[in-house]
C-alpha cells in the first residue's frame, strides 16, 4: 500500500478527488436528466470516499476505511430509495426532467 502511495503521491489523489467532485458538481448543475444528476451525486460521494481511503493509508489509520464502508453501505441504501423515487416520478410525470418537478414548489 505504501508503495502505491509512494509512487503516486498523496497530492495526486487529492487532485483526482477534487476533479471528480467538480465533475459531480457541474453534472448536478447543468444536466436536466434526473438520473444523470443522481449519478453526479454518486460521483461526488465517491470522490469523498476516495479521499477518505487515501488519507487513511497516508496516516496509517484504518478508521477512514471503516468510514468508507459505512458510507458505501448507506449510499447503497440511498441509491435504492433514490431510484425508487425516480421510477415513481417517471410513472407520474412521464419524464424525469428535473425542471418538470416544479410541482413541489411551496
Amino acid at each position, binding site marked *: 500500500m505504501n508503495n502505491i502511495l509512494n509512487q503516486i503521491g498523496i497530492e495526486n489523489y487529492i487532485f483526482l478527488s477534487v476533479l471528480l467532485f467538480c465533475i459531480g458538481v457541474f453534472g448536478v448543475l447543468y444536466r436536466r436528466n434526473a438520473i444523470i444528476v443522481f449519478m453526479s451525486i454518486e460521483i461526488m460521494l465517491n470522490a469523498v470516499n476516495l479521499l477518505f481511503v487515501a488519507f487513511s493509508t497516508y496516516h496509517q489509520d484504518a478508521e477512514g476505511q471503516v468510514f468508507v464502508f459505512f458510507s458505501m453501505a448507506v449510499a447503497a441504501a440511498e441509491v435504492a430509495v433514490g431510484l425508487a423515487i425516480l421510477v415513481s416520478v417517471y410513472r407520474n410525470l412521464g419524464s424525469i426532467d*428535473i*425542471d418538470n418537478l416544479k410541482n413541489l414548489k411551496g
Partner: protein
Amino acid sequence: METNLALVLLLSPFVGFLFNIFFGKKVSRTVSGAIGTFTVVVSFLMSICFFAQLNQNGKAIELSLFDWISVHNFKLDFGILLDQLSLLWLLFVTGIGSLIHLYSISYMHDDEHMHKFFAYLNLFVFFMITLVVGSNLLVMFIGWEGVGLCSYLLIGFWYKNQDYNDAAKKAFIMNRIGDLGFLIGMFILATMFSTLNYSELKHAVAAGDVNTALLGVAALCLFIGATGKSAQLPLYTWLPDAMAGPTPVSALIHAATMVTAGIFMITRMNFVFDLTPEIQNIIAIVGAATALVAASIGLLQNDIKKVLAYSTVSQLGLMFLALGLGAYNVAVFHVITHAFFKACLFLGSGSVIHGLHGEQDMRKMGGLRKAMPITYITMLISTLAISGIFPFAGFWSKDEILMVAFEHNKVLWVVASIASIMTAFYMFRLMYLTFFKDFRGTEEQKHHLHESPSLITIPLIILALLALVGGAINLPGSTWLNHFLEPILVAKHEEHALGSNEYMLMGIALAGALVGIAMAYAKYIKQSFVPKEDAAITGFNKTIYNKYYVDEFYTFLIVTPINGLANFFRTTLEPALGKAVFSLGSAANGLGTQGKKLQNGNIGLYLFVFVIGVCAIITYLFIAQ
C-alpha cells in the same frame, strides 16, 4: 346570637338588593318597593335592639367575622364594631333610610326602572351600614367606596340625560380624589402601627412615643378623604350637581347620610386628630370657609334643590368647624339634627316637584301653601329648624357649634354666625318663593296642583316631628348625647355651665336668624321680589349666581389641560407610534415578498445557490485560518 343578629342587620338590605336586581322586574312595582323598604326596616329594628342593649349595659360589641389579611406582623379581621358612635349612625341611617324608601314607593311609582332604583337604594344602605359598623379602617373603606358607587349609580339614574351622566361622573371623580387621600392616610397608619383596628390604633396612639409629624400627614390625608366625601372646600362642587338624581336620593345620600361619612370617620379617628392640632386648625378653617362660601352661593340660586344642596354643603362646613375645634360630640349632634330637617326639606321639595310635574325652578312656583298644606307645614318646621329658631332641633345643635367657636376663636365664630344668618335668609327666601304670593307657573300646572299622597306626607310628618323635638337629645343642662359619646372620645368635653355668656350667645344666634328671616320677608313678601331671568342678572350677583365660577376655574385649571394633553396624545402621539409599528410590519412584509421570489421551484437554481453557498463557506474557512 349576637353575631347572627348583627349579620341580619348588615345583610338585610343586601338581600333586598339581590332580590330587586334579579327578580324586581318580575314582580309589580309596589311589591318591589315594599320589599326594598321592608329589608331596611329590618335593619332599623335590629339597630334599635342593639341600641337598647347598649344603652342598658354600656358595653360595646366587637365581633370578628373572619381573618381577612394576615401578612407578616400585619393582621386584620373582617370585624364588626357596634359601639355608641356606630349605633347612633345606624339608627339615623336605617331610620331615615326606611322613611325615604317608603316615600320613594310613591315618588318613583311612574318610573319604569323602579326595581332598579330600589336595588341601588338597598345597596347603598348596605354599604353605608358596612361603613359604619366596620371595626377597622379597611372595612370602613369598603363601605366608603361602595356608597360612592351607589351615589354614582343613583345620580345618573336617569341615564338618558347626558347632563345627569356628567354630574354622576363628576361626583365619582371628585370622590376618587378624596379616596386617594383616605388610602394614603390608611397606609401611613398601617406602616406606623401595623394595625388598622380602631381599638388597637387607639391603644397604640395612647401608648405615646409616636412620630407626630408622620401622624399629622396621616391625619391630613384622612381629612382630604373626608373633604371629598363630605363636600368641603375645595372638593365640594360635585354635591350641587349631584342633585341631578331623583329627589329621594338627594335626601338620603346627598343630605342625610353619605355626606356625613367624613364626619363619622374623623370622629372615629378622634384620637389621631387630637394629637395633631395643626390639622385640627386646618379642618376648622376649611369648615368655616366652606360654610360661608356655600351659604353665599345659596343666596341666589333659583333651583329649589340647588338651594338645599348649597345649604347642605354649608351645614357640613359648620360640622367640620366643630370637628376642627375638637368638639366631636357637637358635630355628631348637628349631624343628627341636620339629618332630620334636611331629609325633611329635600322630601318636601320632592313633594313640591312631584306636585308640579318636574318643575324645579322657584321662579315658576309660588302660592303652594293652600294647595299643599302638609308639605308647607312640615317644610316650615324644618326651615325654622335649619335657621336656628328656638326651640327647634337646629337651634340647639347650631348654637352649640357657635358656642364652641366663640370659646376658641372669635373670627371663626363671626364667620359661622354670618353663614347662619345667610342660611336663615335663603331658607326663608325658598319658603316665600315657593309657598307664598301667587302661583307663577302655567295654567295647566295650576289646575293640577294637589297635595301629595299619604306615602309621601307620612315620612314628611315624622321627619318634621323629629326636626321639632330632635334637639332634646342634647339640651344644655341634660346632655344625654355628650354622656353617651364619652367612651368614644379621648379628650373629655368640658360641660358648659349655663352662664350669662351662653345666654347672650344664644340670644345673638337667635337674633341673627331673625334678622335673616326679616330680610327675606322684606324682600320677597313686602316688595314681592321675584328673581330675574338668568340673562338679566348682572354684577357681583352674577358671579355668585354662577357659583363664583369655581367650576369654570376647575375646568380651566385641570380639565382643559388634561383634555389638551389627551388631544395631543390622540392626534399626534398615537398616529406617530402607530406609524412606527405599522412600518415595521410593512418592512417585514416587503422583505417576505422579495424572499418569496427565491423559492420559485427551479431546482437548478436551488442547487446553484447551494453550491455557491458551500463554496463561500469553504473559502471563508480557508481565509479564517
